């Protein structure tokens, strides 16, 4: 069955189509949830909420405005942000400094690590660091956009990103 057909039937509450959509995109959605949450249980809660949103809003999806993968991933990210905002994310203050370049050994480590292991590294970051790192590096938002989404200043966004990278670098060096 084509993706268009699956999407259309999901909009009609077709259970079979809903299951097919989950099988096709569930891994992507869950990996996003894992990146934004520091444990599996919270990630699954976020995924369930995101799933309900996707199924109820799928009729609003317009293929001419982008792919379904991007559209659904954006919903999952926004759902995670909403849940994290409810939990009142604590943004740790940090000096606005430039990021240090990684050593060759660090680069070697990231090359060896799998996507799952890298996700675990991100999960280990404090909540504020994790959110800004995900939004800036993985989702591609600017500091201005992140500041607007999270209700923080651009300076805070930059400092959180700096701290996140420092933490990641430390963890990678430990892994070597």
């Amino acid at each position, binding site marked *: 069955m084509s993706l268009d057909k699956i999407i259309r*039937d999901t909009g*009609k509450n077709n259970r079979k189509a809903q299951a097919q959509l*989950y099988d096709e995109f*569930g891994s992507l959605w869950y990996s996003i949830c894992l990146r934004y949450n520091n444990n599996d249980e919270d990630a*699954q809660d976020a995924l369930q909420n995101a799933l309900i949103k996707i199924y109820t809003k799928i009729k609003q999806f317009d293929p001419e405005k982008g792919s379904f993968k991007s559209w659904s991933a954006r919903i999952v990210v926004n759902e995670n942000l909403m849940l994290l905002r409810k939990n009142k994310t604590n943004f740790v203050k940090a000096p606005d400094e430039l990021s240090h370049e990684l050593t060759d050994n660090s680069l070697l480590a990231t090359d060896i690590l799998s996507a799952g292991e890298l996700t675990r590294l991100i999960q280990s970051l404090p909540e504020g660091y994790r959110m800004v790192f995900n939004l800036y590096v993985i989702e591609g938002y600017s500091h201005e956009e992140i500041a607007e989404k999270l209700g923080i200043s651009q300076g805070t966004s930059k400092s959180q990103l700096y701290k996140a990278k420092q933490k990641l670098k430390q963890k990678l060096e430990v892994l070597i």
Partner: protein
Amino acid sequence: MSMDNSKYDDLDKLFQSRLKDENVVKEDWNKPPRAVFDGALASLSNDRNKKRKRFLIWFLGAIIGTGILLISLHTCQRLQNLETTISTLQTEQQEYNNQTNQAKLQNNIAAIPSDEQDKPSNNLEASKMIDPPVIHSDSKGAATHGLYNQTSSYLVKQEQTTNEKEPEQIIEQSTIEVQKDNVMIQSPMLVQRKYSIVYDHAIPKIHNVVTASVKRSSDGFVPGIFLYALAGMNASTIRMTNTEGADFSLTGYERYYADLFAGAGLAYEFNDKWAIDLQATYNRMHVKSTFEDDILYDESKEIIDDQGNIHFDSDYDIFTVMGRQSGYLSLVVDKDQIDDQEKMTNLTTIDNSFRTVGLSLGSLYTPVSKERFTFSIGAGVQYNYIIQLEEQMETSISYNSALLFQESLQVKPKENTNRNFWSLYGNIRLGYELSDHFGIKLDIASAHSLSSIRKTSGPADSKTYINNLRTALMFYYAF
């Protein structure tokens, strides 16, 4: 969201290469638990159930409200009709009394010597000034013919009784004036015609057809509630059994295809093939029946009045949807134009008009579902209530194709009408989904009453059934 690669360092690019959306692949670490999917569906189902409950409460409230409104309107209309009937009876009783007084005055004048009658202020003239005759205009005079007295007028009596009582109660009595060559002539009663209309358990019933709407996907079950509105045309026929003999039977029926109906309902699917449907409808129906028979001229029935005119009197019975209608005909004849045992034709048409409301419950099975098209078959039962029933009768007498007499009567059936009855139906339906929520369906249904439309006191009593074929166009909205 901007994606300027120059702003990313090596660490960023390495994480992006593994974790960006387009690079994520299915692996064990990101395989989502099935319980998450089941939990999401359960939550969605709960939300839908809440919406359905709210909708059901709203819909049932609307049906109950509509029913109360219809019953109230019907009750008001019946009260108005009763008041009108009482007023009419009082007026007609007064007219009858006046005519009786006039007849007495005429007799008295006849007994007075002629020189006294020439006096300018006699009692007859005074009486006429005080009590002018009342004219009803339901009847039309006939064309000139040898059998018909050109300066005649006649009195129509209509008697309506039940089967349990003798037809002795006079409901309507009126004088009818006949117009000839644009001259209104009021003369003493020459032709008398009586209608003794007997309603022997004659209750009309309406068939109504239940419809349901189901929206489905070709790939599986699509749960949901479907609210729909429908409108269409009724075509009805009447089947009679155990009639009291060919002499009394109707000779023809006509179907009226222009009668409209409208309704609303909801359908609920409980699996991917079967649906249950609840529907409320308002119907208008007409059935036109015809009686045609020969009346033989019988010299033994001639009567000669005081003026020397010859009258021909005849009784007849018509066994109609509403019951037996007995008539009495009296015509002034010209003996030069007709001989004994020559045939005259009596043609009577009876138009029964019904208005009903119905509530139906049925099931629908959908064996074929392809893309946006569906084909379904269904069956169910319907409860009907007659809110209005009228009968219009038109009768005429002709001789050698010339119209001698024509008259119309409107009768409102009495309380021996079966206002509540059940019917069974079967239907087929073709559907097309216009969008995710809206669709259109063509429904063709046939219905049969479960019992006679007449109230019967035993198996030997005559029975009447109405068969109904209905074509409906329905529009639905799927929740």
